[in-house]
């Protein structure tokens, strides 16, 4: 449940970008930050290792203004994708309102995607949340690699692997080029706020 401050008339919405390591979660946030930093007027916080991997999390907050008398503050987070940071991943998921699952379209990463979404289901269950009830959007990232001859998993297969039960919105994307990064984010923010509004009634 989102953090609601009735006194300040403020709602904080927490969106977490989840997915296998090196899938492009941080790149999604970096694109949004680089493209719109002047408009969102906030700083992106990121903690990386020397090898450019997310060590703890990335954090990008922004306000979308007043809706229905409430100031809506959106917080985008990423989790470290590497398997060894399971505890950190769980911690970042605490209080999550919406998820973007960033899958890696590379054929060699197919199994990692499946493992990661199972991992997400378990992590959410840890907070007594269901992957089938929380707002979630899927993003099939790195489609640009096809141009370079890298074998990719087909969208049909990705849908079968990851979205056959969730039946949620999914976007083919290239976080590096910015393709469908903003539509993915807009979709999850919209879905999440809609769910929060319903829950608040």
């Amino acid at each position, binding site marked *: 449940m989102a953090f609601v401050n009735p006194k300040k008339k403020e709602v904080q919405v927490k969106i977490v970008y989840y997915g296998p390591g090196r899938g492009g979660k941080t790149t999604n946030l970096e694109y949004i930050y680089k493209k719109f930093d002047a408009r969102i007027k906030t700083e992106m916080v990121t903690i990386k290792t020397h090898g450019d991997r997310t060590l703890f999390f990335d954090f990008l907050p922004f306000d979308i203004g007043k809706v229905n008398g409430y100031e809506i503050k959106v917080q985008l987070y990423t989790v470290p994708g590497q398997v060894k940071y399971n505890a950190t991943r769980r911690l970042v998921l605490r209080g999550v309102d919406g998820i973007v699952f960033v899958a890696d379209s590379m054929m060699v990463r197919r199994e990692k995607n499946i493992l990661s979404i199972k991992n997400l289901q378990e992590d959410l269950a840890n907070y007594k949340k269901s992957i089938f009830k929380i707002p979630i959007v899927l993003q099939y990232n790195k489609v640009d690699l096809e141009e370079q001859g890298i074998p990719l998993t087909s969208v049909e297969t990705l849908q079968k692997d990851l979205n056959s039960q969730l039946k949620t919105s999914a976007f083919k994307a290239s976080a590096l080029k910015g393709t469908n990064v*903003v539509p993915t984010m807009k979709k999850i923010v919209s879905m999440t706020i809609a769910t929060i509004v319903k829950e608040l009634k």
Partner: protein
Amino acid sequence: MQQNIDDVLIDEIDGRLDDLFAGDKTPQKTDGESSDIKEYPLKELKAVILSIDWEITDDAMKRLADQVAGLKKRYKDDRIVFMLIQLLGSIGEYIRINKGKSHPDSFKFLNSLFKKLDKVVRTKGLTESEKKKILSVEVNKYKVLKDKLSHRKPVAEKGKQVKPAVKAKAGKTDVLPIEAFSDAMDQIRQLIRSEFKALREELRSGRERK
């Protein structure tokens, strides 16, 4: 009625998001455009190098070694390409041994080598001198990396021996990556010498003909 209020609210949120993130001119479709992808001889090597960039697994490193071996056979008559592949194999071997503890620059060097190899293989009409220039730049990068690797060795305390920063596991490989680099360097030197020798002889015979 309630449904209408919800819809109005969602529309308002969407409107806010549209305003805030307006002006994203990034094309939302990506279509392949390379015409000669099927003929591209470095396709598998590129996939392996991208995999290594994301995760160093034994499988990926084995695939890299296999690709290097295959390409060396394919390009045995093109000495510049052969040398670049050899350097790639050497840095691959270093990463295979050191895995996540490899120097961060070794990954940059691996990617740089691949880019140059890709350029040399794919660019039609590249002259031998241009190719040599590319090789020479990569060799210089290697020298810098080699220097960094040697500085990475633990500082010796008095009376204590310094362990090498890069150490091959006994029986697993017969060439240390640094030695492999040195071998590659020697071959490059020999190549340049032989090229100059051939050039001189050609000039001499040309003068004699006149």
